[in-house]
């Protein structure tokens, strides 16, 4: 229903208020999408963009999880990192895109760095929050029954953090994906962002919109996928809320 209204308004604005050159109608863009799909190399562009996002994300996890862990466990580290992490989280994506461009110029490292930088604060903050919320009573239960620190880490700490970490991943993924494409628009010779710029330089608004729509579709698809994984991982929570 929401979609029908969206396409209706789009068609109306395109045909009546603006013109076909400024804003091509849905049909034209749809044909453009078909064209791109038929061309065949679109999958490569998406694959490249996704793998760059993924690698940036890995970097963010590798840095963000330990930082979040330290922040959640010790007041000292919380104070040490707090302003930096919150500050970093408030910087707009475009700044990271520019920083990445300045450092790496046109190349594949730029988008990866930008994704890493933008995602890290979200992940760190969520992990910290999860750790602070760990139920101390469960930890003392674990000690009373003679369980080791490693067992407590695996069965209590990590499961407590997981929902928060996952929320951090989902939230930052949407942002990371946008920053990745943004960085590609400026400084890349492949990927979805690059294709958008390429279409723009060829004065093909339909091309820009076609790529953008495909980009949105993929983002939604991945979101849905993550939501399904999340529901499965945290199936115990449905019961908790019901009780």
């Amino acid at each position: 229903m929401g979609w029908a209204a969206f396409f209706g308004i789009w068609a109306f604005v395109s045909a009546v208020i603006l013109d076909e050159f400024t804003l091509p109608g849905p049909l034209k863009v749809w044909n453009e999408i078909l064209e791109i799909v038929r061309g065949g190399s679109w999958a490569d562009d998406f694959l490249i963009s996704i793998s760059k996002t993924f690698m940036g994300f890995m970097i963010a996890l590798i840095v963000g999880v330990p930082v979040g862990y330290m922040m959640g466990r010790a007041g000292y580290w919380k104070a040490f990192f707090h302003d930096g992490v919150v500050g970093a989280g408030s910087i707009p994506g475009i700044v990271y895109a520019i920083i990445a461009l300045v450092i790496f110029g046109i190349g594949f490292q730029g988008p990866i760095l930008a994704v890493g930088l933008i995602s890290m604060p979200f992940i760190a903050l969520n992990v910290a929050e999860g750790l602070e919320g760990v139920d101390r009573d469960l930890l003392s239960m674990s000690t009373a029954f003679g369980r080791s620190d490693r067992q407590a880490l695996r069965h209590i700490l990590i499961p407590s953090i997981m929902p928060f970490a996952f929320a951090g991943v989902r939230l930052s993924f949407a942002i990371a994906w946008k920053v990745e494409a943004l960085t590609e628009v400026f400084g890349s010779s492949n990927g979805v962002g690059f294709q958008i710029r390429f279409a723009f330089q060829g004065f093909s608004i339909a091309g820009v919109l076609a790529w953008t729509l495909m980009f949105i579709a993929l983002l939604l698809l991945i979101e849905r996928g993550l939501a399904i994984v999340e529901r499965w991982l945290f199936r115990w929570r449905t019961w908790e809320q019901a009780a």
Partner: protein
Amino acid sequence: MATLQIEKLTKTFPPHSKDGRPVRAIQDISFAMSGQVFVSLVGPSGCGKSTLLNIVSGVDSPSTGTVTVTQDGKKARLGYVFQDSRLLPWRTVMQNMLYVSDLPEEEGRANASKYLEMVGLGHAHDMYPGQLSGGMQQRVGIARAFSVSPDLLLMDEPFSHLDAITARSLREELQVMWNATKKTVLFVTHDVMEAVQLSNRIITLAHGGTVFDDTTIELPFPRKASDPEFAAQQAEILGRFETMELERTAAKG
């Protein structure tokens, strides 16, 4: 045979607020218990009962004094039933039981099943704690504590969150399980009737964490609250509570 020995135990917590005084949860407690006894620890709220159990279980450490728990000279194995069930919400009932088990997988499962059966939860292996009622969760907590074959079983007001009917039936189950296993049990409660019903010995703590009274109860099991001797015992202990309160007010005034 399990032996718990507490000597000149004190526990002081850091002040709750910046310029507050340190909290003396336990001032001076000494007692010993050993063998097949069910000992109840009763006393007013805040007199340090939970603190004492936490020190015995190693969750907390004494400020001064010593606590030793031994089983025939070796380090004893402990079971702990908490006031709330303290189950891992992200693990099923069976997984919660296995978390505290040191047995090989198969044996652990069989053992856990046995104790779940005993508390009437043979059907609930694959349920999550959130799917169980409070009483059922508490049963899992009890099964968990028994399942490790503890030399010393600690119980901290295990029935106080439950309604009277559920508490009563769990109390009876506990009695049956204790008769079957004859563990050494240290049981904390507010409820004098509960203490008289279950225990061989009742230790009363006073405000500020000192031992006020130590009584042996000789009535045969199973004990019925309607039995006049039961009522007499209960009245006597309650009488001591009153004396304790009177002394306290007198000391204050």
